[in-house]
């Protein structure tokens, strides 16, 4: 793009892998939004299991008197 000696089409070709990576990233973000929306709906309409303590990263000792 900044080298006048090279045709503009070179910069278009150089961009293609990055544009493809952007498409993959965009797809991941869209998928992430959908997963988030699903979790949010599940949370609001109380579809998930009822928990009284953290689901993950519980301290081992905590499990005994739960």
């Amino acid at each position, binding site marked *: 793009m*900044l080298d*006048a000696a090279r045709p503009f*089409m070179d910069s*278009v*070709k150089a961009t*293609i892998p990055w544009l493809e990576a952007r498409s993959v990233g965009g797809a991941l973000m869209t998928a992430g939004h959908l997963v988030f929306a699903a979790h949010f709906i599940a949370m609001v309409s109380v579809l998930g299991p009822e928990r009284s303590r953290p689901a993950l990263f519980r301290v081992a000792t905590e499990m005994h008197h739960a």
Partner: protein
Amino acid sequence: MRSETRLFGGALAMIAAATAVLVVLPYFQLHDVKPPAALHPYTSAQLRGRQQYIRQGCIYCHSQQPRDRAQAPDAARGWGRASVAADYFYDSPHLLGTMRTGPDLFNIGARQPSLDWNLGHLYQPRAFVPGSIMPSFPYLFEVKPKAEPGDRVVTLPPSFAPAHGVVVARPAALDLVSYLVSLDHTYPLAAADTGP
């Protein structure tokens, strides 16, 4: 929270500072910019084409702001001189664009003044620019068995033309092309146009 007043006061002060720098200051810099004598207001067809430019998303890949020689070889590519505020007098909103997946279009009317080239290029960019990654816009055209009176037939290289029938431009394509060929800001600037 120690003080709600302080929180909201601080937020308002930040917004006021940003507005002063981003809105008020540019307003005073630009409010008396006059259009260059060689720049004409858009015709209604060109304005409709401008809406198509926005609607088809041209702005996502095309800028309308040639850079200065010191910044980029835009002039060497034939994209024109660096633009000034007065060049955008009739543009509301401006369509500066932020990305150059494709070339700058601020002077596409000077570079490609041909209606045929522009129509054919919208129908199939690869027919005119090998290796182009621009999407084609077939829905702005219609393939008919035979052209009717008043139809604008698009001339295409034989290998890209449909096997049967002719390609006819829809009004949206004609408007868009009339906007594109109107993009010509190659006129020299008077001292008054370049501003302070």
